[in-house]
């Protein structure tokens, strides 16, 4: 059986192509059902950034043809088009690819947490379709454990690398539970909307959006939730909110230190996190010197994001090394599992020969004292153990799939079919 990873992702196919190949969740079962005759063990992962098949099969070529046909039929595409964007990994390369996907090293945003859940979902679908056998099960469980190691033992998931997620991360370092802290967005621009979305995803519940044009604020609240206000209404609510996000256009500061001094006096020591992503800046820099005010402008956030990128690069290198180690361990485990029947048969054969010869010897030497009989028995047992120890260890270290097969066949021919060969010659 060969383990294969076959598919396309954001690195090999542009969005226009990925859109065509994306398979709706309700059709995943249908795809798996069609693959079952060719690959008894298979999983199918379809997200906005990738469409991938993981399977254990002997009929690789037929399988690939079938996949192309399925996708062509689903999406009415030309076969040549399909081939161009797809990649194929086999054996250890396929394991490494799956591990990198599950650990989000292969993601568009490296370190994002969503992909692990999506891989788990693909595996669950495969289980429910009755297509997750011992091999696939072992490999996927190994992938989940490797992904967990990457998340816990490297800094990969702890370093936000875009301005919006840095802002949310900082908010969580000031306030323990974001849902208890209201937020106000001044402005309805694209960047403000994106950061506000991150804040809402991060847990902010009470949200006000204030803009010079109320209609734009209303349009934004339709998408994000919250309450739309006019700009003056928004500014009058500064005492109520704990997170202030400003993204207004215009040449002068909307918020001056003198404005916020009065506001802070009435806040009774409550912290205020000000995220100024407006260019030019909306908040006078002196505001950051006020007690309990934490002011970050776009450059401050970008500097943290950039510093995190450097740290994340190191984390990626650590994670890659860790995954290679995991793949080696998985290969050793699979080898051991595949060669186990041959090893058991080999040991059984030697043990049978030993027992027969020992019986013969004891028959001929019935007068031998019990102590010596036991010594002979122990000697033969130790001899067999010693003779088989090194070959067993060496066998477990064979890594190549074809090598593994050759070794197993050779052992079978030399030792296990010996009687049969003699008969053939006779």
């Amino acid at each position, binding site marked *: 059986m060969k383990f294969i990873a076959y598919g396309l992702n954001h690195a090999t196919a542009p969005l226009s192509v990925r859109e065509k190949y994306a398979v709706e969740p309700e059709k995943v079962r249908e795809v798996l059902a069609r693959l079952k005759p060719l690959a008894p063990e298979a999983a199918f992962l379809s997200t906005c950034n990738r469409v991938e098949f993981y399977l254990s099969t002997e009929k690789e070529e037929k399988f690939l043809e079938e996949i192309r046909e399925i996708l062509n039929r689903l999406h009415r595409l030309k076969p040549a088009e399909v081939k161009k964007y797809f990649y194929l990994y086999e054996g250890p390369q396929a394991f490494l690819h799956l591990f990198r996907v599950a650990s989000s090293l292969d993601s568009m945003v490296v370190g994002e947490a969503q992909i692990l859940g999506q891989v788990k979902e693909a595996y669950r679908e495969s289980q429910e379709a009755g297509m997750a056998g011992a091999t696939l099960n072992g490999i996927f469980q190994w992938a989940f454990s490797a992904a967990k190691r990457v998340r*816990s*033992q490297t*800094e990969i998931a*702890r370093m936000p690398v875009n301005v919006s997620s840095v802002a949310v991360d*900082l908010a*969580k*370092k*000031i*306030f*323990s539970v974001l849902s208890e802290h209201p937020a106000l967005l001044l402005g309805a621009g694209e960047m403000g909307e994106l950061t506000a979305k991150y804040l809402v995803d991060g847990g902010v519940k009470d949200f006000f959006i204030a803009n010079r044009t109320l209609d734009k604020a209303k349009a934004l609240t339709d998408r994000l939730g919250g309450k739309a206000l006019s700009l003056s209404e928004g500014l009058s609510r500064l005492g109520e909110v704990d997170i202030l996000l400003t993204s207004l256009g215009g040449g002068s500061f909307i918020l001056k230190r003198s404005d916020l001094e009065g506001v802070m006096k009435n806040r*009774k*020591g*409550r*912290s205020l996190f000000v995220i100024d992503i407006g260019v030019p800046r909306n908040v006078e820099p002196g505001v*950051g010197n006020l*007690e*309990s005010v*934490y002011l*970050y402008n776009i450059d*401050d956030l970008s*500097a*943290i994001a950039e*510093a995190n990128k450097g*740290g994340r690069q190191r984390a990626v290198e650590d994670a890659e090394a860790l995954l290679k180690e995991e793949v080696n361990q998985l290969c050793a485990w699979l080898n051991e599992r595949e060669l186990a029947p041959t090893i058991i048969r080999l040991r059984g054969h030697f043990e049978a020969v030993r027992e027969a010869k020992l019986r013969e010897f004891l028959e001929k030497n019935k007068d031998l004292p019990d102590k010596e009989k036991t010594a002979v028995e122990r000697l033969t047992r130790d001899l067999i153990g010693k003779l088989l120890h090194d070959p067993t260890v060496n066998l477990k270290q064979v890594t190549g799939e074809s090598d593994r097969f050759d070794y197993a066949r050779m052992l079978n021919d030399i030792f296990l079919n010996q009687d049969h060969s003699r008969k053939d010659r006779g």
Partner: protein
Amino acid sequence: MNLPNIALAVTALLYAAGCFFSFRYYRSLEDSFDRSAIRWLSAAFFLQGLALAAGWVARGYAPLDSLEGILSAFSFALGAALLIGRLKTALPVLTSLFAPFIFFVSCLAFLFGLKPVPLMDSRLMTLGMASHIMLTFLGFSHFTLGFGIGVAYWVQEGQLKYHRIKNWSYRLPALEDLDRLTVFYIGLGFLFWLGGLGLGAVQAFEVWNKLPLSDPKIVGSFLVLMIYAGFFLLRWGFKIHGRKSMVLVMVGYVLALFTFVGVRAFLNTQHIF
């Protein structure tokens, strides 16, 4: 080594295991390490409690009249403060920061266990006096943790305010959590300390028919209570939070530390430690 020494050594080893896992938690932020750390620290805490109780039963008096007993009781009180804090809020990073300190004190208890110490006036070897000592220990332990969290707040606030984000200290909990937990520890420490002082006064009055009000330890203890009362007044009366209120936590702790360990070294006191 006698049995109490063996118990102290085992306790120190258990605290060491707790430290090891809490350090691994700090590096990896993996919950399983925190769970292991808490298990080992709890085991150390209960063994230390058992050893103290066994010493009490064997001698008929709480084993708080020797340096070994005092340090052991102090690390026990620190363990209690840490575990009480964990019941209130699960902030494992703080366990990682405090566990080594508890381990250090428990090691001192083991190392000093072999040295002879001055005996206490036999008239003071009462249950009330033992309770006075334990309550002040608990109070001081809570002040210690409150101080530690106050320092963590100071560091975290400085990072966030002045944009000096460092990876190691960025793992500290949110300012809001640190602030709440500081108030919790100082509040609980205040109550223990107050109770300890009250019981001590009753004991002293029973033995000497007067209160040793000029004793520097007692003066220092009152000052500590006043500083912490000022801390609560600032917070709840004048709504002063953040760095300013943390200054009082630190000043209060420096005085508590001097009262606890410095007074005997530099001034005359009737207290044997």
